[in-house]
């Protein structure tokens, strides 16, 4: 049997120390992703550091925004009054993820850190540069209906599967991290990486670092919507998703923040669209134009060409739903 050690830690510092000491150790939170990966043989941590006892389960607010502890279950965050009131977009995105049972177990930190659902990544008999660098990309010329249309490389075309992260990206969140040298803040846009030549790296969290919370700054977005298009109505990953946060006054868009999921190795911010929308009025034509801009530069593969059309439709629909 592949044995592993299991330890429980009760402080963030102890957890960081334990992980820093052992490169083959991994944190375990809800376990909904990690345990599957272990069962499939994708990963084999030598030591599991259980962080569930850490005091990272609070949701707090101050003038600057809302902070959500890394160990807050997805379901708790989704139903939290502060979250619903101040950041309804996040609540919508959380509720669009997985199933009720999974959301009860899944934590905010684990959700950020979850790995791609590329089937080649999960099947250890298949080539996959992310699982095993230099082994080739199974999806590139294989079955790639779920794969990226933006920011992919010739090494990897996987997408980040999270719904929550798409909303956090749109909400300009910050990931708060504990390191051996103290606390570190990583803007959400810089947290996840594009695959480039190192698809084995999903994000910029260094070995040993622990996510302790995410902070969502106060904002003036009064029109929000999270749209997820999937193959079945629950318990399926996004074909594409769109998180829309708009500040609208007197029918004019003052500011906009939009991100897409299911299209790239990280939540995909639509900065060009955001720029375009500022000062525009809410009309179907504006939304159509926004969708065109959004999908400019998309690159598709054998099975995912539909994502361009679907992506445009989803953007129009999300903007429409946000502004009704």
């Amino acid at each position, binding site marked *: *049997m*592949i044995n592993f050690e299991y330890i429980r830690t009760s402080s963030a510092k102890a957890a960081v120390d334990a992980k820093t000491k052992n490169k083959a150790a991994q944190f375990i939170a809800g376990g909904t992703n990690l345990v599957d990966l272990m069962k499939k*043989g994708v990963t084999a941590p030598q030591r599991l550091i259980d962080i569930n006892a850490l005091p990272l389960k609070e949701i707090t607010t101050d003038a600057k925004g809302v902070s959500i502890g890394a160990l807050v279950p997805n379901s708790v965050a989704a139903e939290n009054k502060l979250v619903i009131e101040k950041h309804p977009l996040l609540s919508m995105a959380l509720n669009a993820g997985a*199933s009720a049972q999974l959301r009860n177990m899944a934590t905010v930190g684990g959700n950020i850190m979850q790995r791609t*659902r590329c*089937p*080649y990544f*999960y*099947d250890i*008999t*298949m080539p996959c540069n992310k699982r095993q660098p230099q082994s080739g990309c*199974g999806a590139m*010329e*294989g*079955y790639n209906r779920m794969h990226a249309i933006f920011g992919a490389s010739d090494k990897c075309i996987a997408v980040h599967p999270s719904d929550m992260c798409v909303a956090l990206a749109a909400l300009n969140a910050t990931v708060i991290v504990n390191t051996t040298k103290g606390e570190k803040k990583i803007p959400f846009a810089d947290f996840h990486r594009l695959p480039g030549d190192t698809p084995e790296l999903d994000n910029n969290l260094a070995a040993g670092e622990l996510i302790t919370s995410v902070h969502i700054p106060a904002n003036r977005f009064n029109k929000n919507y999270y*749209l997820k*298009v*999937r*193959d*079945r*109505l*629950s*318990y*399926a*990953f996004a*074909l594409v998703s769109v998180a829309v946060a708009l500040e609208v006054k007197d029918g004019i868009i003052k500011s906009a923040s939009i991100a897409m999921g299911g299209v790239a190795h990280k939540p995909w911010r639509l900065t060009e669209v955001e720029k375009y929308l500022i000062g525009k009025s809410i009309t179907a034509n504006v939304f159509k134009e926004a969708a065109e801009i959004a999908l400019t530069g998309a690159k598709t593969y054998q099975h995912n060409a*539909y994502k361009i*059309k*679907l992506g445009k*439709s*989803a953007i*129009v*629909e999300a903007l*429409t739903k946000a502004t009704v």
Partner: protein
Amino acid sequence: MDNHSLLSETFFADDDRVDGLAKVTGKATFSAEFKPAGLTHAVFVCSTIAKGAIRHLNIYEAKNAPGVIDIIYHLNCPDVPGFKPVDRTTNPNARSFTGLKVFYNNMVVSNGQPIALVVADTYERAVYAASLVKVEYIKENAETDFEKNKFNDKLLKPRPDYVRNQKDAWATAEVKLEEEYTMPIETHNPMEMHATIAVWEGGKLTVYDKSQGPKNVQGELSRLFAIDEKNVQVITEYVGGAFGSGLRSWPHVHAAVIAAKKLNRPVKVTLNREQMFTMVGYRPQCWQKIGIGASKDGKLNGIAHHAVSNTSAYEDFTEGISSVSQYLYDCPNVFTTYKILPLDVNTPTWMRGPGPASGCFALESALDELSYKLNIDPIELRLINNAEVHPQSKLPWTTKFLKECYALGKEKIGWHKRPTTPGTLKEDGMLVGYGMAVGVFGAGRSAATAKGILKNDGSLLLQSAVSDMGPGTSTAMVKIGSEQMGLEENKVRFELGDTDFPTGPTQGGSGSATAVGSAVIAVCDAIKLSLKEMAIETVAAFKNFKPDDIKYENGKLVAANNSASIHFIDLLKEAGKPELQVSKSSSGFAQRDKYATNSFSVHFVKLHVHPVTGVIKLKHMVSAADAGKIISEKTARSQMVGGAVGGIGMAMTEETIIDHRYGRYINSNFVDYHVPVHADVPPMDIVFPNQPDYIISPTGAKGIGEIALVGVAPAILNAVYNATGKRVRDLPVTPDKLL
């Protein structure tokens, strides 16, 4: 409309499943849960290429892993007598084994084929050791792509073409169309995964197996291992769904028996979800083409229905996909063909509604398309072409209440709201569509035997060696026994799933209720006769009567002139007998030369399609089924609902995907292979004309399991067209296909 709820249906009285409580409280023991003393755990090593041979299988490291007891593979596997080619010159009746011969030689015929079995003291250790087995292959080019090869020269023709009058008369009709319809592999994914425990004691073999036919498994194991049937006992008391995957015994059953014999210890083999995809069959991928034509007033003139489905390279699996077009409608000219394409994959098998499920998808879609061309309501079109007698044999049906199904379902779904022009009705910003389609399946009655034990405590125990994969066979048999004997249902018990019980049929083709029910009725009749004879013999007041003069009423024997009466409990006591045992058989349906026998269903769907994203939301479904007499209303309804959910999967979500470069399934798990979830399933109404068919069997039943699913997928696709004006002829209809 939207206040329907799955549970609020008040049409039915409360009648729970007799085994429901055991199932939901964990008291039911499923095959993998038996714990014979000394049980060992076995896990397969499976091939990772689709075609070729094993050059070398290195078990050194695995063999030395902790807890490992043995590793069985082709080089050390004991001979299985039944795997040897049969010599028909010496034994003309010998049945040759056609399935995958596990560990028989070094050939690899599909990706995911079991090539070694690691037996260890715990499951986890077996899993780990299996991961250490290293295999070197001699790889050959494999062909797994159905699309690319569906017309290649390897196609086999399992049955002659069918021609009624002119082959292509449809092409000369006033209104006509010709279209192709395709569907992917749909994999068997019952909740309970297959598992087998084999125990050899002396020369006796006991097998705990997830199966739809314990007698069938017993027969096969007896042939394969050359032991007398009476020395093989198969136990399959509870089955957590099977849908056809348990209709035959698969390599894991044989492997468990081989290993238990070799090691002289009980061995359990459990499949994981991935292995369910490569080892227990699936509904084959298929391509169909239909040419159909009618006169302007809607009378069908001709149908040409062609089908190709896949099989494996080592076994021919057929399911007669295009045959439905021969008899579902009254049509003078019919031409059907059916071919199978061998691919380097594992063998398909029957899946709920095999044949008609795929065939009706094409035929019922084509009929819907024709209705728009004709500008005739789809129900009306079907009524115009309703077959009064079986169009092929010209025989009358034993019973046929299809017209009643149209009427009942049409009313419930609110058919009058259906827009006649597609894409024109909106509700809450969503496109609204209504659709319907017909389902059909063969009905009949096979032979069965049951035993009845009437006890002097007033209870009746019934037994038959059948299985209950979920339809509620036990519940129905208890109802029949209770009705026949005039006993409270809680006084009647039905035991099944053990080959030591009298022979019963394999559960499949919607035939359990009629077959086993008829045997139960025969047993009850025989018990009543024995009681009468017993009364004449032992009770003075009955002495001068003949059995015919005595009535059996609610447990009491009553003499003709009411001069004497005695309850069977008292009679058994008086006769000094604690119980009365009777075994009885009922024969198969013997009037096929006089009657056609079918069950019918009509499915209705109301759905929404998002005009921008193409996401479908089912809003309401109604299934009306001409299933004969409804014996147990709650389980009958549950079967219909379950079948409809299977149909939703077929129409909208299920698709097994192969990466043809490796010939390997790449979505063999519940995350990527989408079975419908609750959110996909709308409120559902189930309606039954509930008309008994006493020609087929004394139970009055015709069968439900298959017609519950057959026709559901085309009803959904037809509703999608009605909502959007987009005709999707390639299943499943995922959002990207509606953009």
